[in-house]
């Protein structure tokens, strides 16, 4: 197979685009897709500071590298979840990556804030992944706010977005269908949230990571019950296989024709937001959900006979 552009031997075959590329031309293609996403949806404006959420996976690290090459002012943010074995491994990948490429990194250690995920799992009576997701989003928003970042970028790719859109569509969830997309404008104390990789598939971000020698964290979280939307992703892989180009057509079609219609319907507005009394994050409940989680975990930990600090202390 030859590169469609320069006729050198191809390394990446992309049936969805009816093309194949050598690694140099693939890198150009990858950059073009990111630039196109940024330009078409005004994801980043000139001079804005961008905080990039880094999990240690191929998508987030690839995104960070690409945005830095495009000369955006990027800073990485890693939330250390405090899970034995898996968190130190993920953190080491992120720190090594940022050091190698000379990129700024901010790390939040949940253990220092009283909310390591193993304690959340032990003391909070709800699915750990929903609490964990909430805590991570809280810190992304909070660091963006406190650090003066206008933009918060995540590594969601086309497969993530299509699977999520499909799930929202199956439920006809008008709320989500009215604002799912690569850009959620800043409002009431939240930074703008962007997904610059939304035009690129999981396969393409994996190729990019490999070609750029990015070492990624792949060991699954011990609390994971498998990837979210795995069934939907399989279904879409089959659709894409039989009709190449279906994924991006479905997603782009939604952005152009579906979302505006839902946005018209979904005019309901939530309760007004005010700064959390404890941490100043925007919330509609006085003390925000994550601060309340922190209080509950602290109380139950203190009442747990198995977790007393030692004899003679209270």
């Amino acid at each position, binding site marked *: *197979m030859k590169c469609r552009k320069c006729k050198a031997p*191809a*390394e*990446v*075959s*992309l*049936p*969805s685009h009816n093309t*194949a590329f050598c*690694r140099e031309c693939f890198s150009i293609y990858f950059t073009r897709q990111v630039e196109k996403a940024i330009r078409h949806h005004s994801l980043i404006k000139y001079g804005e500071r961008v905080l990039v959420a880094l999990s240690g*996976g191929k*998508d987030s690290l690839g995104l960070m590298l690409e945005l830095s090459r495009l000369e955006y002012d990027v800073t990485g943010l890693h939330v250390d979840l405090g899970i034995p074995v898996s968190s130190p491994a993920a953190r080491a990948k992120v720190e090594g990556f940022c050091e190698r490429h000379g990129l700024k990194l901010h790390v939040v250690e949940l253990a220092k804030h009283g909310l390591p995920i193993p304690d959340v799992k032990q003391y909070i009576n709800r699915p750990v992944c929903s609490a964990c997701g909430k805590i991570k989003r809280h810190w992304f928003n909070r660091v963006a706010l406190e650090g003066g970042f206008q933009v918060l970028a995540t590594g969601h790719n086309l*497969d*993530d977005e299509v699977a999520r859109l499909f799930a929202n569509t199956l439920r006809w969830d008008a709320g989500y269908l009215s604002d799912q997309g690569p850009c959620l404008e800043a409002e009431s104390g939240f930074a703008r949230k962007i997904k610059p990789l939304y035009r690129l*598939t*999981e*396969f393409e971000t*994996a*190729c990019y990571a*490999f*070609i750029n020698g990015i070492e990624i964290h*792949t*060991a*699954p*979280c011990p609390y*994971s*019950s*498998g*990837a*979210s939307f*795995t069934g939907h*992703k399989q279904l879409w*892989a089959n659709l*894409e*296989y039989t009709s190449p180009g279906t994924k991006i057509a479905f997603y782009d079609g939604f952005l152009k024709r579906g979302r505006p219609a839902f946005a018209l319907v979904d005019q309901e507005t939530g309760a007004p937001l005010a700064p959390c009394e404890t941490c100043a994050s925007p919330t509609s409940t006085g003390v925000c959900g994550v601060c309340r989680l922190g209080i509950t975990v602290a109380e139950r930990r203190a009442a747990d006979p198995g977790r007393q600090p030692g004899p003679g202390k209270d």
Partner: protein
Amino acid sequence: MITVFIEPDNETMTFVRLNTVLMLQRRLGLRVNDALVIRGEELLTPDCQLKDGDQIRVRKVMSTG
């Protein structure tokens, strides 16, 4: 014989008589863009010929949580 290491399962398989990457993908039940197929430092497209003694890495791309 061709040795294939599969990630992230960390499984090793060996094959005799396997001419192309496409044949390997079919044997593993993978579609073209389900996994990276790696030989040394290079990525292989489905039409690439495999030869005796090749050490191949197959890296599945679907994220696992």
